[in-house]
């Protein structure tokens, strides 16, 4: 949050510095007065009379009523100005629009203009504003990538928005920030900002249907024969799910299980063997697969570039 790479988070950081300065001065004055009086007015243990009793002082009390009101007024004006200048509900010009839907416990990202659906990892071009439309499939979630923008909740029956613009190439970590159930902790987000060429080639690849490789056909048949298809979609193969992440380009992602594990064949096998071993309590059931089925499935999944 203190090391922003987006105009939104930079504005917030600058505001933070200002407020922190004001707060810091109040802190030093107040605690300083406290410590000073603690030391200066400690009992020596040999007093014979009580100290002078001071019942109050109108000018002094007026001072520490009026001065805080003035400080508060300044903070209020600064805050209001920033709220209006960072209007999150309006898309910036030329923004890339993404629909982010919170599910227990993963994020689905849809680029409707580009015809792409993916999960967990959000690819964006560097230096282009991204306007995120936040929705929820089930309970309340909250989309938060600290170095890019503040968090806004994804609430069922509502549509919220935020925008950011990654000014550097890189991977920016975030995660769900509103408690949403058992695996709230592993509802992670990666925003991957790329140069325009890299982003365009990523888009071009994502827009293709799933690849068909003859060697993986038996794996594909296994996939189709199992309940996987009830939740997972693969473009060009089967589209009856949607409850779980789209697997069309699974291998283009760095992680599986919403960022809980690296996307390696070993982890895929572990995941299929028992999803709870990676994400205890997650909604993907243990399908009681045989090792042979797991090998076939992972053989197929690893072709989905």
């Amino acid at each position, binding site marked *: 949050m203190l090391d922003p790479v987006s105009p939104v988070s930079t504005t917030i950081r600058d505001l933070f510095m200002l407020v922190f300065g004001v707060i810091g001065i109040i802190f030093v004055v107040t605690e300083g007065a406290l410590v000073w009086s603690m030391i200066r007015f400690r009992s020596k243990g040999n007093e014979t009379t009580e100290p002078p009793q001071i019942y109050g002082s109108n000018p002094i009390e007026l001072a520490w009523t009026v001065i805080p009101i003035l400080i508060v007024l300044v903070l209020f004006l600064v805050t209001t100005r920033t*709220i209006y200048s960072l209007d999150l509900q309006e898309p910036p010009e030329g923004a890339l629009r993404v629909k982010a839907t919170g599910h227990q416990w993963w994020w689905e990202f849809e680029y409707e203009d580009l015809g792409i659906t993916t999960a967990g990892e959000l690819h964006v071009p560097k230096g282009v504003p991204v306007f995120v439309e936040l929705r929820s499939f089930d309970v309340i979630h909250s989309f938060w990538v600290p170095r890019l923008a503040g968090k806004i909740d994804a609430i069922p029956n509502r549509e919220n928005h935020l925008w950011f613009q990654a000014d550097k190439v890189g991977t920016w970590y975030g995660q769900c920030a509103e*408690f949403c159930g058992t695996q709230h902790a592993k509802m992670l987000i990666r925003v991957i900002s790329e140069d325009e060429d890299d982003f365009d080639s990523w888009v071009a690849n994502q827009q293709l249907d799933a690849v068909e490789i003859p060697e993986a056909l038996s794996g594909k048949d296994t996939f189709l024969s199992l309940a996987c298809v009830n939740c997972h979609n693969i473009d060009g193969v089967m589209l009856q799910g949607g409850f779980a992440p789209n697997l069309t380009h699974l291998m283009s992602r760095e992680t599986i299980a919403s960022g809980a594990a690296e996307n390696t064949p070993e982890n895929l096998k572990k995941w299929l063997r028992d999803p709870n071993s990676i994400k205890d309590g997650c909604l993907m059931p243990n399908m009681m697969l045989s090792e042979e089925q797991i090998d076939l499935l992972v053989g197929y999944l690893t072709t989905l570039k």
Partner: protein
Amino acid sequence: MTTKQHIPLSGKLHEWITTVDHKKLGIMYILCGIFYLLIAGCEALMMRWQLAIPNNDILAPETFNAFFTMHGTTMIFLVGMPILLGAANYFVPLMIGARDMAFPRLNAFGFWLFFFGALLLYFSFLGGQGLTGEEGAPDNGWFAYAPLTSKTFSPGSATDYWIIALFVSGMGSIMTAINLVTTILTMRCKGMTMMKMPIFAWMMLVDAGLILIALPTLAAIQIMLLLDRQYGAHFFDAQAGADPVIWQHLFWFFGHPEVYILILPAFAFISEVTPVFSRKVLFGYPLMVVATVSIGFIALGVWAHHMFTTGLSPAVLSYFAGATFLIGVPTGMKIFNWIATLWGGQIRYETPMLFAIGFIAMFTIGGLTGIMLAVVPMDWQLSDTYFVVGHFHFVLFGGLLFAIFSGFYYWFPKVTGKLLNETIGKWQFWLLFVGFVLTFGPMHFSGFEGMPRRIYTFMPNRGLEMYNMLSSIGAGVQAIGFVLFVYNIIHSLLKGKPAGDDPWDAWTLEWSTTSPPPPWNYAKTPVVASRRPLWDLKHPGDPDWEYE
């Protein structure tokens, strides 16, 4: 007061269970509060153990979620509330020179509602089923946001336990609040006008008023939620088209005043302890009253600052930010008035005062980080992170709990006739103070680094390891402090020095009667002429009423 004839244990038990005496009820409230404080502390310790290192697996996610839910719920409803109601029960009648509360039997009824509500909440560990149908205790967070609490997402009975247990104990709190308001308004002794009440009574009066406004709201939405869950109503059921944000509005309309319900009694304790140990009259009593009443009113109009990330319009955001800043003004007045009370005094650093000064220092920090959170765009970053956890523990631990310990050490001699051991008390203070800062200081920084609240584990290599390890070590240090506290109570009850009627050379009425006070409090109803009747008695040549 030693008994002359032998009373069997069953007789004593009967006496306590059937009592309507405000002092016995007060003691039972506070003992329950301490008992649940230790339980909630153990839950917190387990959570810190789990969070000491990334990807730890001491606690399963369901267990962790149940623990943070129960920790928060317990600390607020079963520790904060009973201790403050217990203290109000015990000391308000004594301080205003009354023989009991206005409605003694209602008082007992309120206590037993609380008692059984609390038992019911903890019975959920045995009888309930949480989100996954396996775990026992409620695991939706103490705020129980819709629609996570709906039957679809929380199919077990744990949420129903949460609803009914808090509803029952909340009813008890409402009754006690009615009792307090009536007592303070109608039963003050002769000469005690409203502006001559001890500041303690003023703060408890405003507190009870807030309880009367806030808690029925909670009771109402809990019943609505129960109807949703058991009878298919659709108040908060998002799948039936309801707007779940309405729960947040209603919950925080209770929840934010609740924070002030908890902290006003802390202010009350500090406002009694600070003058006595500085040997000075409380600075600016009228302003303190004004500040307390303003806090009461403003506290009712700031609830949506808990909801800055829900997509409110800029105008609404600005209003709630402004109102929240505004509450800093009366709070600041109090802090400055306490410091002015210290100023020019002869400060004695006995344990009650150590905790009182600890309170002022730490609560100031908690208040200032609260101002930071009210700056809406900063809240977009910091809301629901460990920064918030750090912030409100500075308010409720460094604030409320330190104030409770201050009051406990201050009034224990009055209640039991024995002084608490000073050496153990000082050790307890320093262990708690160091442990507290070590636990909750680093949380602000892990919040900056991007660590959300309510996560059972965190990812390695994101700059969070050191902060979490420090917090966990701090929790261990605190644990020793709590053990010392319990030891000190037992030790001092058995072997403590006799307190006498007025061990601190204090000025309010309760110190004029015996320690412990007789069942009838005062053989003769006192008559007062000022806010410090015992000062007048001790300084007949220079009484307070000449200056008030």
